[in-house]
């Protein structure tokens, strides 16, 4: 029974496709998978916006949306119906394009953003046997296609002919290029240990249990560091607070999509959130065991529920961070990426190599943890040197 629920989507796909002639099946099955992604993830996105507004409202001691429920009834659903009127509003708003804007590029930018973001979902294993395109080089595919997002950010910022847009695009690209390096390097450790670039096999590698606890990579010294680096870099890659300088509303309005309105704005919003889900999904797959359960007695819960639960848990942490942390300054942001995260990621690769070649006992835990701890202390001190941090004196406030 548990197996059947676990494989319910795979069985449904085979069932639907089996009615078609043999020649049409590959095309039909890929079309169904595309429709599945196009339905499920935008739905999660729309619910997440409500979740985020309510969560931030809670943290900031106010209610957040709590009125709209099911239309034409008195059922309120605690405000979770808000995304429907929001979507209608976005769709029906006037689409304003600046007269000086480069029409073609301005039109294409949101499309160029959304296509690579949606493509990245092809290689993510959402559950057991649920990777849509099980590429041999799946991780490389994800990183390569995800890297193409930068060009759409540039297109949006440049074509708007607005200084705020261009500044936002410059900031976004500088930030994305800088944080992509620790992101990739922290993923390299997983490739070294698992010995494959295939995301399904990486998950399979973590699907073993000792004393009832899963072999997730995050439960090793290098994996923990890798996960934390990946987490910070993915916050920066998805332009979330505290790395939301590209769209810092108090400084440059809305950054590279200042001049977008109506449905194009909604596409940017959607693309950003879908990109966030995708990169969280990659983090889960690499470090948190993908669709596997953390303890062996919970393996009966369907794999796709585990994946979604982990994803929503990390989305919650993202919202929590957004509501509680202030924004970084641009030089702090770049300094943190290049002076702290990059060296730590490189040392982490070395540690993963040591972990791989030492014998399987407590000594490798000790050695690897000691190296990482030492590196952390030295790099942290180095980053904080010459900062002259001390008690802050407010000259004018006293």
């Amino acid at each position: 029974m548990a197996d059947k629920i676990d494989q319910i989507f795979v069985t449904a796909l085979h069932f639907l496709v089996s009615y078609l002639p043999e020649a049409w099946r590959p095309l039909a099955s890929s079309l169904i998978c595309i429709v599945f992604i196009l339905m499920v993830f935008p739905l999660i996105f729309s619910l997440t916006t409500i979740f985020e507004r309510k969560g931030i409202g809670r943290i900031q001691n106010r209610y957040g949306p709590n009125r709209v429920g099911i239309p034409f009834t008195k059922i309120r659903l605690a405000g979770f119906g808000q995304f429907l009127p929001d979507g209608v509003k976005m769709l029906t708003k006037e689409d304003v394009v600046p007269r000086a804007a480069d029409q073609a590029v301005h039109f294409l930018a949101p499309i160029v953003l959304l296509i690579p973001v949606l493509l990245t979902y092809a290689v993510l294993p959402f559950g057991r046997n649920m990777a849509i395109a099980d590429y041999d080089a799946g991780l490389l595919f994800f990183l390569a296609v995800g890297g193409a997002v930068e060009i759409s950010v540039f297109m949006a910022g440049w074509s708007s002919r607005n200084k705020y847009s261009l500044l936002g695009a410059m900031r976004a690209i500088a930030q994305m290029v800088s944080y992509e390096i620790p992101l990739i390097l922290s993923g390299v450790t997983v490739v070294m240990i698992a010995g494959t670039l295939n995301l399904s096999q990486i998950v399979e590698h973590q699907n073993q249990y000792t004393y009832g606890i899963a072999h997730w990579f995050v439960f090793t010294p290098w994996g923990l560091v890798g996960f934390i680096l990946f987490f910070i870099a993915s916050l920066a890659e998805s332009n979330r607070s505290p790395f939301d300088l590209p769209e810092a509303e108090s400084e440059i309005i809305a950054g590279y999509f200042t001049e977008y309105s109506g449905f194009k704005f909604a596409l940017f919003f959607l693309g950003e959130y879908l990109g966030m889900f995708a990169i969280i999904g990659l983090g889960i797959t690499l470090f948190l065991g993908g669709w596997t359960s953390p303890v062996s007695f919970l393996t009966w819960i369907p794999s796709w529920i585990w994946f979604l639960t982990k994803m929503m848990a990390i989305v919650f942490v993202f919202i929590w961070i957004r509501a509680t942390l202030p924004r970084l300054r641009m030089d702090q942001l770049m300094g943190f990426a290049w002076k702290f995260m990059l060296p730590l990621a490189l040392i982490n690769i070395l540690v993963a190599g040591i972990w791989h070649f030492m014998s399987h006992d407590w000594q490798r835990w000790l050695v690897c943890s000691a190296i990482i701890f030492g590196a952390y202390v030295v790099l942290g001190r180095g980053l904080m040197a010459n900062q002259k941090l001390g008690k802050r004196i407010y000259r004018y406030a006293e």
Partner: protein
Amino acid sequence: MSPFFIITGIVTLLGAVFAMSLRNLVHCALAMAIAFAGVAALFLQLGAEFVGFAQILIYIGAIAILIVFAILLTRSGESPDKSVLTSGWWAGIAVTAMVFTILGWAVLSSSAVPKELPAAPAASVKNVGDLLMTKYVLPLEIVALVLTAAMIGAVLIALKEDNKDNAGGQP
């Protein structure tokens, strides 16, 4: 020739043509990104996943961005009024056609190119890794050294000069 090959070929060629004939330099750079994507798609059709993805990662994710930034930082976005093609464009086409014919003839008649394609290996990415670490380890290390030297050079150029005369002069 499959229809997919024809479509990607046409897209690649169109991207390349637009990259050299459009007036606005940023448009040219974006058209070149399309051509890069088309080449990556051609690699993928040949079953060379690693090369195709690396093409996207490096050429679209890095080089196209680099070119666009270079354009933005060096000159204004104004496009030239006169035609971007010189008057002797037909001579250029004749020369390229000749070079293409000679190169194509040389490649086709060469004995170094196998007439029958070898069977594609099962796990190609693993093979690429194995070869990089064994047979081609020396070129790999040399490339690493060159890139490190280039990076240190770039950092040195970008480094703020320590101006001794002006120390403390400007607030």
